[in-house]
Each structure stands twice: as C-alpha cells, then as structure tokens.
C-alpha cells in the first residue's frame, strides 16, 4: 500500500488539520471529538444540519459544510460510523435556535451512533435517513437500502431550504421527499484499500466487475464479466428508473459520481451514455453534476444518481452554495 502518510494512526487527524487550513474561509475543525463546522455561524436563526459517517468518502461530508449546505459534519474512522460524542459536540456548537437536523446514510452503524448522539442533546432534533441505493432490494425484513451518492443531493437541497429560515419539520419533510425522488446504483472495477488494512478489501479478476457495489467496497448485487459502458449504463439506469418511475417528459437531475480511482474522462463518457439513454426514454436531463463527490478511497468505478425534479428541488439545487467541494453563485 502506497499512500501519503506519516503514521497510519494519525492520517485522519492530519488530514482534517490540512482540510481546516486549506479552507479557513469556510470551515473550522474541532479535534477530540472531531467535527467540522462552518467558520462563521449564520447570523439568522436556522435549522442546523449535521451529517457525518465513516471517513474515506471525501469530499462527503466535510466538503459540504458551508453556506447553503451543512452546518457541521462528523467524520468517523475510515468506513466506521462516527461516535455519539462527536454528534453531541457538533450539535452543541452549531445549534442556532431552530433545532438540529441530522442527515444519516442508512447503515446500522451510522443509524445507531447518530441515535445515541441525538439522545445526548437537548435541542429539538429530527433525522433524515438517506437510502437511495436501488442496488439493494428493500423489504420489511431487512435493514433496507444503503445511502450513497444521493446523499449529496439531499444535503444540498435541504441545506438551501434551511437557509430560508424554514423550520425543522419543513426541512425534515423536504429531505425525506428529495430522498424519495432519488435513486442510485454503481459498479466497481477494483477494490479500495483501507489504510489500516494495507491491502485491498476484496479480490476481483481482471475481467470482472462488482455490480451494485456499495461505497465501502462491500459486495453488490452480483459479480459479473465487464460490460461496455453503454450496456452497464443501461442496466443501472433501468434499475433506477424502475424504482423512481419518472413520467415521460419529466425533468431530472443526473449525477455521475466517481468512486475515486476513475479518471474524469471516463465519468463524462458515462454521463454521455446515461444522457443518451434518458433521452431515448424521453426523460429530460435538466440538471447535471459529474465528479468525485461520494468516494470509496481509491476504488475504481462510479455510479449514477437520478433525482426527479419538481420546482422546489430545482430551486434549492440551483441556489447559492459555498463549501469546499461545491460552490456556485457566491
């Protein structure tokens, strides 16, 4: 394993420090317990959005702290949910009269630790559980679907609504709505390497891909032979559409997300494949975003996320945002 590292036990702390120093205009870092908060609290009362999860998915979530998105993010160890005291400390730091809204990806560890954190705070609070990964069949007997690249879209749009002064319930409901409008699915060509492990999480043959992979390199729907970009886009997009069922002519946001190890050139090629498919199906890609936003360390591969757009979602997607990883109109 080759990495920029001094001491494997300190990578998170050093990386967080660097992140803080590189973006003093946007964020500040609290160490022990670790969290990233906006450099400046909003002068107007607002619902405070806190997300978090295991590290290794950067820029998610720390890269999304700032005006128009999150108020704080709690980074856990690589691929391990953060601990409740992080959420408690972050909440106490950023609360701003209108309550705390936690945004949590649907994984047991995240859910449990965020619940324990929520139990520890006194402010009003609510939680949005993001579960956009259509690769995993949902059923009442299971943990349900994972939260993946759609999380960024929930954080952006709810973050925008919160800036308008909307209350906790409105923000929570809007987040649940955006989550419901959103479906994602990905494919991996290689495994990632967790720094502490020092070797790839899984073995995969040179001609195989993991279809429906999770963002921790955990196995997906099935292992299969590599397919052309057109073929795999078709399978992924059709699975997503089966789930979110857009109408003919409906407007959508299409997000092509890279897992970290795949060049931008390929991600745009994937966008081209997806765009063509949706065009054929008479679905209108009216917003788009392509890049490495929800990564799995150095894993090669990527995912599609599609969100059905109504006027509210478009408005809150287009609105100004000023974070380390997403920035526009300011």
């Amino acid at each position: 394993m080759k990495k920029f590292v001094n001491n494997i036990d300190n990578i998170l702390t050093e990386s967080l420090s660097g992140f803080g120093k590189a973006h003093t205009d946007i964020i500040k870092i609290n160490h022990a317990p670790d969290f990233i908060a906006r450099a400046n609290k909003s002068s107007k009362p607002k619902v405070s959005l806190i997300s978090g999860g295991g590290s290794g998915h950067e820029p998610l979530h720390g890269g999304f702290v700032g005006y128009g998105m999150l108020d704080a993010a709690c980074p856990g160890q690589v691929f391990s949910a953060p601990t409740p005291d992080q959420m408690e400390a972050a909440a106490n730091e950023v609360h701003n009269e209108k309550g705390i809204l936690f945004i949590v990806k649907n994984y047991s560890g995240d859910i449990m630790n965020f619940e324990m954190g929520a139990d520890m705070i006194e402010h009003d609070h609510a939680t949005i559980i993001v579960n956009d990964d259509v690769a995993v069949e949902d059923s009442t007997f299971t943990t349900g679907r994972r939260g993946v690249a759609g999380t960024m879209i929930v954080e952006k749009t709810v973050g925008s609504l919160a800036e308008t002064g909307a209350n906790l319930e409105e923000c929570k409901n809007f987040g649940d709505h955006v989550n419901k409008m959103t479906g994602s699915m990905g494919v991996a060509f290689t495994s990632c390497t967790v720094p502490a492990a020092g070797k790839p999480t899984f073995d995969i043959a040179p001609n195989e891909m993991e279809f429906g992979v999770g963002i921790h390199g955990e196995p997906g729907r099935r292992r299969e032979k590599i397919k052309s970009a057109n073929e795999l886009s078709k399978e992924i997009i059709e699975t997503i559409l089966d789930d979110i069922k857009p109408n003919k002519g409906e407007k959508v946001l299409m997000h092509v997300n890279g897992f970290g190890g795949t060049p931008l050139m390929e991600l745009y090629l994937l966008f081209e494949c997806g765009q063509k498919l949706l065009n054929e199906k008479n679905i209108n890609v009216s917003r788009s975003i392509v890049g490495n936003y929800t990564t799995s360390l150095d894993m090669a591969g990527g995912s599609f996320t599609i969100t059905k757009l109504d006027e509210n979602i478009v408005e809150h997607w287009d609105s100004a945002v000023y974070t380390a990883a997403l920035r526009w109109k300011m």
Partner: protein
Amino acid sequence: MMKGKNIFDSIEKIQNNIIDNKEEIERLDQQIGDGDHIFNILRGLEEISKLRESLIGEPIDKVFKQLGMKIMTTVGGSSGALFATLLIGMAKNYNSQSTDQENIAKMFYEGVEAMKKRGKSGSGEKTMLDVLIPVSEILCECKNEKNSKIVADKVKKVAEKSMLSTKDMLATKGRASFLGERSKGHIDPGARSSQLAIDAVCNQFIN
C-alpha cells in the same frame, strides 16, 4: 466477589484472543462487510485497557459504565454502538446485594436486551446477537450453578456453536444484509469477535 481486577484481567485475555485471530476477523468483515471490524474492536480494547490504573479500584457498576463510555466515544461503527450499549446496560443492572453468578446473568441479560433495542434486531439475523442471545440464555439457566468451571464450559460451547451457526444464515441486519443470498457461507465477523471474547473469559475459569 467480582473485582475491578477481574474485569481488567479478562479484558487482557480478550485482547490476546482477538489479536491471535486478527487475520480471520479482518477477512470475515472484508467478505461480507467493509473490512473495518477488526480495527474497531482492537481500537476499543486498546482504549479500555488504558483505564486499568484509574478504574481498578472503583465499584463494579462504575467500571462497566466507564468502559461503555470509552467504547462509545472511541470505537464507532456498528460494533462501537452495540458493545457500548451492552456495557452501559450491564452497568445499570449491577446489584451489589446479589451473588456474582446472579449479577452476571442479570447484567448480561439486560445488556443484550438493550443491544436488541439499539440494533432493532434479534436472533437469526446473522449478527453478534446470534452469539450473545444464546449466551445470555444459558447464563440465566445456570444462575444457581455454583461450579463456575461447569458454567464456563457450557457458555463456551454455546458461544462456539452459535457463532458457527451464523455461517449459513441469511443476513437481514447490518452491512451483510445488503448482500442478500451472497451473505450465506460466511461467519458473521461480529459473531466471531463476540465468541472469541466470551471464549477468552470462559477459559479463565476452565484452566
């Protein structure tokens, strides 16, 4: 009577047993999870070992509570939340009037109940609870058995058997659940680490 020293001695044994089986636990979570379980467990054990000096003379419930808090604030992931819940749940149910045997049975039972609530799960879901629930049951059954060697032997066997039983289960909770049918054929990492911990504690009484 149970003392702080017993608890920290047990932690040391647990740590050794986990380290001895490090590669296997690592591999299990790589196969059906995300590969961090062994690091979570080791981090937690290392952190709580450091409390030996400061807690060894404290009352049992305080010891368990502090261990739980330490796990809660340093481990993270599913196992951090769950083991913290177990230990804090145990702390709450210590009764200085009861025998060790009674205390252990009651504390463990309630700790596991708290875990079930926290994890919204129960038996047969291919998790650490598939080890911890049967262990809690056998401990209750043996509440009046004075010979700790006999109890330890029974517990050890139950833990091992139930750990192995997770191999052919279909996971419905935790990260392995995303795998569906593909989760079958692999032992659950949390079940394995829990069983190794129980095994280490039991061996103290058997040998």
